[in-house]
């Protein structure tokens, strides 16, 4: 057992430290102010996910995206853990909307066929949504009947009215924007193993029983 499972990281060369490097992640220009980040750590202090799995560190993800070390995160397990609660955005002294950034990192990961197992469960919802114009429609008829029963006893129409016109238009939007191809390209059984990007360098207090 010579190697302890730690593959050696390339010396973090600053080979690609060009300006506004984060632009190739922030393709939709939703986090234009990323370069204001002062690395102050307020977001990680609040983050409910970081307090459970320390290798998830939003500050370091921003730091790496700014310094051009994005590849490390594409193959990582951590970018799929964000709860999207945007508490980091609420607290950030420079108003960086981090969830919008991690959403776009996830797109880059999906393009490179990483993390598909974390998108697969929603493929069903997306496909169902084209038909129903609604999300979260239970797949089983038992589930749908239960909803119809509850809705009728409280005096609501058995099923939320979504007009046929609405469904067609909603479905058409998916086709026209190429989103349908994107959804169908998600291959559920491509369960590539994802590695924790930052587990080394983490103080693992995991097995320490604290109060």
């Amino acid at each position, binding site marked *: *057992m*010579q190697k*302890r499972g*730690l593959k*050696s*990281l*390339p*010396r*973090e060369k600053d080979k690609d430290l060009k300006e506004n490097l984060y632009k190739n992640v922030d393709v939709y220009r939703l986090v234009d102010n990323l370069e204001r980040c002062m690395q102050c750590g307020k977001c990680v202090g609040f983050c409910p996910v970081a*307090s*459970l*799995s*320390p290798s998830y560190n939003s500050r370091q993800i921003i730091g790496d995206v700014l310094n051009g070390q994005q590849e490390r995160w594409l193959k990582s397990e951590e970018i799929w853990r964000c709860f999207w609660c945007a508490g980091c955005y609420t607290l950030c002294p420079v108003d960086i909307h981090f969830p919008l950034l991690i959403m776009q990192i996830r797109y880059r990961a999906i393009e490179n066929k990483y993390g598909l197992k974390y998108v697969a469960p929603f493929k069903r919802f997306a496909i169902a949504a084209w038909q129903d114009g609604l999300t979260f429609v239970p797949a089983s008829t038992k589930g749908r009947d239960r909803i119809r029963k509850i809705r009728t006893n409280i005096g609501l129409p058995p099923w939320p009215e979504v007009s046929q016109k609405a469904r067609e238009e909603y479905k058409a939007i998916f086709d026209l924007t190429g989103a349908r191809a994107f959804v169908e390209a998600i291959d559920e059984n491509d369960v590539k193993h994802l590695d924790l990007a930052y587990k*080394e*360098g983490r*103080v*693992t*207090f*995991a*097995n*320490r029983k*604290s*109060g």
Partner: protein
Amino acid sequence: MEDNIYTPLNLNDIDDSIQEEIRTKCGIDVDLCLECGKCSGGCPNGHIFDYTPRKIVRLVKLGDKETLMTMDALWICLSCQLCLDRCPSGIDIPAILDYMREKACRGGVEASRPRVKLFHELLLSSIRERGRVSELDVVLKYNWKTGEYMKNARLGVKMLLKGKLNLSRSRVKETEEVRRLFEATIAKDLP
């Protein structure tokens, strides 16, 4: 579904014992550390350390004895003293690593790089028996113990032809004193 979910470290629960030990035993006060990162920048192996030298000093401050003893950096540090030489506060990080290495060995903690530990032991036992390192002895024992018998054999032959390999199993006259020296230091004070 066992539950070793991480809970954030509470700073009040930091046990200063390891920091105290290093202050008293090695005479190093880690509070002097400016957290500037000069040591980690220069460290030749820094990029494959799981904890860079600065983070090791930080671990001492956080009192994380368990990680200090099981981390990989303990065994792949070349103790080249560059971090000590560069440190604006003169903190002797190699000495901290030496101390933690002894503590790990004494505590029976399984080394993350067993071969490195084996090599250390072979060198020391050769000095202990013969008062100095007899290279051939150590190399052969190392190959024997690691099971790679013919490792570097061709290199060995070339060195022999060039007279670079000292075949004699040389020994110091007063090996008895060297052995007593080992007994005196190893036995006692380390917890």
